[in-house]
């Protein structure tokens, strides 16, 4: 068994097709995940005990169960309650719901790291809570959460491979198909791994650079 360039060349377009699906899943899940994660973070720091507890419970459930199980639940269990998705949408929903829980904790920590004086200064010039958040606290939070959110994007990119369980033909799934069809396990898996790394290594380095820059103060 050895790496065969011919097998790679022949199946390269098919793999790239899988990569496109991987990237769309990552992008969409991150967009929804960030929006939902921010909302969850705001609920969690709110003074309303009920909202706070609801957000905490959601985060606990998501963080305490495997993503693979969450994907299965969204695809196979939700339809029983009348919520039906095609595989792609189910994948997006499960990945978004999952990343939201992790991102909300990043946002919460980011918001809480802004000194209390900022909120007080915003209040002192007549801003209400919503305006203080929007114009003063969140713009400062964004800079601080950028590195951990970039890391979250890397994690998400890799985790999208789990949607193969509901037969979504993303990158990993396609490499498995190719290995079955060509009876060569090394070539497609090495190729898929290389493609992941081409994307994840620069992202990780970018996150580290941001972190260094922000840790210097500005």
């Amino acid at each position, binding site marked *: 068994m050895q790496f065969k360039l011919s097998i790679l060349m022949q199946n390269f377009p098919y793999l790239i097709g899988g990569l496109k699906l991987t990237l769309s899943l990552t992008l969409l899940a991150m967009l929804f995940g960030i929006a939902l994660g921010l909302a969850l973070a705001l609920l969690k720091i709110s003074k309303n005990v009920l909202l706070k507890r609801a957000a905490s419970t959601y985060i606990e459930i998501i963080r305490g169960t495997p993503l693979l199980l969450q994907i299965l639940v969204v695809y196979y269990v939700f339809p029983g309650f009348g919520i039906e998705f095609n595989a792609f949408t189910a994948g997006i929903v499960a990945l978004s719901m999952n990343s939201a829980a992790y991102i909300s904790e990043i946002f919460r920590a980011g918001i809480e790291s802004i000194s209390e004086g900022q909120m007080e*200064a915003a209040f*002192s010039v*007549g801003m209400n809570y919503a305006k203080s958040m929007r114009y003063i606290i969140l713009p400062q939070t964004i800079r601080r959460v950028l590195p951990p959110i970039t890391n979250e994007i890397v994690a998400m990119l890799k985790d999208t491979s789990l949607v193969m369980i509901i037969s979504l033909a993303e990158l990993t799934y396609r490499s498995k198909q190719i290995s079955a069809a060509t009876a060569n396990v090394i070539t497609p898996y090495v190729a898929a791994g290389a493609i992941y790394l081409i994307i994840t290594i620069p992202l990780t380095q970018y996150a580290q650079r941001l972190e260094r820059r922000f840790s210097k103060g500005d």
Partner: protein
Amino acid sequence: MIKTVNLTKKFGNLTVLEDINFSIKQGERVVIIGPSGAGKSTFIRCLNFLEKPTSGEVYFKGEKITEKSNLPHLRQRIGMVFQHFNLFPHLTALQNVTIAPMKVKGMRKKEAGDIAMYYLLKVGLEKRVKHYPRQLSGGEKQRVAIARALAMQPDLMLFDEPTSALDIEMIQEVLETMEQIAQEGMTMIVVTHEISFAKEVADRLIFMADGSIVEESTPKEFFTEPKTERAKKFLSKVVSVYTY
């Protein structure tokens, strides 16, 4: 303009302020001094409800302030300058001053910019408008903070130890700015340790200790003939520090 009746503030079991009865008229300048831990900052923060009083009342222009009042609206009328400046680090000096007029009063950028420039000029920072807070010295930061508060055109200004976090050589520029505002007739309540400022600017001086107003008089009376032992003790320490 502002009045408190039996204002009391407790943090848990600790009583920080006890039965403070205070009032200030339009155009009056009141300086509050006293040892640290006297409750001076807590008191001034209760006036715009950044701290919620445990009991007692605060009246602003005859209207009782409660937790249910329109606090954002009220705070537009009461400017505040903090010990640690609390400038918005993601905004330039100019944006620090325009943000509230724009987002709170709904002014256009041009109009808010004109007002901001007027006040930045007044505090002597017209050449630093594009700088971010991190590019400014402590004294400059505090003057931007003063311009930020003034740009909302408040009826009353609260200063919470505005020079305590500054290096010696920057204290003067901030005090001069404050004196200038006082000369223009602004109603001011200033918590400070700056004796010379108190002497020059204050119409009335309040000495606080252990959560209460211990003595209330003109600065001249207070510094030459303090009535209480507590004030005498405090002054003996302050005078030795400031060596006059």
